[in-house]
């Protein structure tokens, strides 16, 4: 037994070592993790939001919510008159969106839809969501008004050979052709500015009392702008639209807060975020314009990595549908067409 005791005593240093290594090991693990912070935290909400199925309604300020999960970000004004919705998202997400709208405004109807773009990702839910609303008439044909610039209707109603580009039930019911359309809803002025950029049908929507701008497709925080030159888009149009947003927005202290901008993709923004994006687009535009001035071809522009070097990981990297090359081609094409 004496030898057994001695044997156990021999284990004592090992046990002591174990007790000392564990906290030290934790320290080393901490040090190792110090430069690799990404992905440590689950992407969960830290403030009050309303989640209905896959749709997340993020309160912005005043009457305004940003709706996430129906394709691009959507904007909803919710108040005593009911709802006004900016864009309707993807067609496949329409039912989920309607379920969320029911929760956001259980008593008051959806009265207005404003389309900021004719692309299917922004207008795919038009038919179903408009039918869920009520403005034009009561009864079986009741639906919400769908308001857009006339170019949205022009593009959606054009003949593609066999039929109209988009079903009639998805078309805007009310269009405007001036630079601005105004209405007053839920106790505040709502101004729709025609700002052609990604295509010739873009608008931005300014909720004046809530101090929120729904930027539509001309601004996002994830990718270069997906300019469609064939559909009337242009780089200078995008820049002009961004400058318009900057003119309308007023930041609070330290160029932070104040007017809030809802992008078509990505995160809620303030004026400075838009300025950073505007700067980036303008600088790239200037570089391409300089290359064109020096008689460079589009292939030469694409081959010049300095054109977008400091921005492409952020806005045109792996995983983005709208790549750096597509963007540069659009910029080049846009700047070399006669209208520019």
């Amino acid at each position, binding site marked *: *037994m*004496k030898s*057994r*005791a001695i044997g*156990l*005593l021999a284990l*004592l240093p090992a*046990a*002591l070592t*174990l*007790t000392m290594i*564990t*906290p030290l090991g934790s*320290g080393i693990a*901490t040090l190792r993790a*110090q*430069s*690799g*912070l*990404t992905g440590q*935290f*689950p*992407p*969960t*909400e*830290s*403030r009050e939001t309303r989640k209905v199925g896959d749709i997340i309604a*993020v309160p912005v300020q005043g009457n305004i919510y*940003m709706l*996430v999960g129906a394709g691009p970000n959507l904007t909803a004004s919710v108040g005593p008159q009911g709802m006004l919705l900016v864009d309707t998202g993807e067609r496949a997400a329409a039912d989920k969106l309607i379920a969320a709208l029911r929760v956001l405004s259980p008593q008051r109807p959806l009265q207005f839809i404003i389309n900021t773009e004719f692309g299917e990702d922004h207008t795919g839910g038009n038919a179903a969501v408009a039918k869920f609303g009520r403005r034009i008439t009561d009864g079986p044909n009741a639906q919400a008004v769908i308001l857009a610039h006339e170019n949205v209707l022009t593009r959606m109603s054009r003949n593609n050979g066999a039929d109209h580009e988009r079903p009639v039930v998805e078309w805007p019911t009310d269009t405007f052709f001036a630079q601005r359309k105004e209405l007053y809803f839920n106790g505040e002025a709502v101004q729709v500015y025609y700002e052609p950029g990604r295509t010739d049908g873009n608008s931005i929507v300014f909720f004046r009392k809530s101090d929120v701008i729904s930027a539509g497709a001309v601004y996002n925080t994830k990718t270069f702008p997906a300019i469609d030159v064939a559909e009337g888009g242009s780089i200078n149009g995008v*820049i002009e639209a961004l*400058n318009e947003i*900057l003119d309308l927005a007023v*930041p609070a*202290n*330290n*160029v*932070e807060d104040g007017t809030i901008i809802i992008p078509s993709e*990505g*995160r*809620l923004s*303030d004026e*400075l*975020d*838009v*300025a*950073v994006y*505007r*700067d980036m687009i*303008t*600088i790239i535009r*200037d*570089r391409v314009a*300089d290359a064109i001035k020096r008689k460079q071809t589009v292939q030469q522009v694409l081959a010049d990595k*300095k054109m977008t*070097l*400091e*921005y*492409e990981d*952020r806005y045109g990297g792996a995983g983005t549908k709208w790549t750096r090359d597509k963007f540069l081609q659009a910029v080049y094409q846009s700047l070399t067409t006669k209208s520019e």
Partner: protein
Amino acid sequence: MLNVSRHTKLLVAVLVLLCLIPLTQRKVVAQRGQQTPILDIQGMWNHNNLMTEERATLINAVGGGAKIGDYTGFPLNEAGRQQADSWMAARLELPEHQCHPHPAQYSLWGPGNFRISNIYDPLSDRIIGMRLQGTFGRADRVFWVDGRPHPPEYDRHTWGGFSTAVWDGNMLTVDTDHLKEGWFSRNGITTSDSATMREHYIKHDNYLTVVFFVNDPEKLAEPFIRTTQAVYDPTTVLNAQECQPFNTNVINADQPRGYVPHFLPGKNDQLKAFAETFGVPIEAARGEDKTLYPEYMVEIKKWAQAHEKTAPTTNETREKPATASRQAASAIK
């Protein structure tokens, strides 16, 4: 026999207890991390008088503020370097760029005193966070210690970012994300809005040391790591919080709407001035990651020796390295 058996049992019990100690310690640390600060770092901290010596020396040497083309000590990657090269100071005059504070990625390294105070849960009276106020431009921050998660991707980014913190032994470890794009230095060295940061706050008597790591693969070849210090000083005064109304854009007044001041790639003729004026190898001034390490001093010495051989003996001391630097600079566009 009985005595031996008793000894054996005693030994086994001791061993079991010893083995349990690490588990107990871990649990205690976790509990502390959740709720209870081990160390009180509240108070007014004077930072201006204790900036790292070489940093203060450099700032004083160049006349307060970073010089164009001075990227020394920054592990910039190609993208970060090009962004700095294209930067033009007139951009800060644009109305939407006025009143930038130092962002959290930089604020504790730049000048500016600060105050740390606890935030208490009104019901339980437990500490749920700490507020850090002050620094240049007042990008005030909150470190949440109540275990709350970081915000989702669609939430806003701010100058101060979103921070959670845990007590790790005798230091407070803070993790921050949701930061705005800002500067590492006001000469175009940019930190992106994808950057994340880890800080360690360590108190020694009346001194507070902060070690911070900024991880920004978009702009940096490797994490940016620095330390800074502050001393407890109840008489410290903080910078003003307000910065408005915004000024008229005078510098760019004759430019068209939407003008963004910048240099086209290869067109910034000011980039070599810092290296030439201060006798720094152009390679070091360009901010490569290899220049951060002690081993790079060997290269510096070689550069200095090469210069000694080639420099004219009649020149003044300040001009000697500058001459060699010009030679090196001429090889780089």
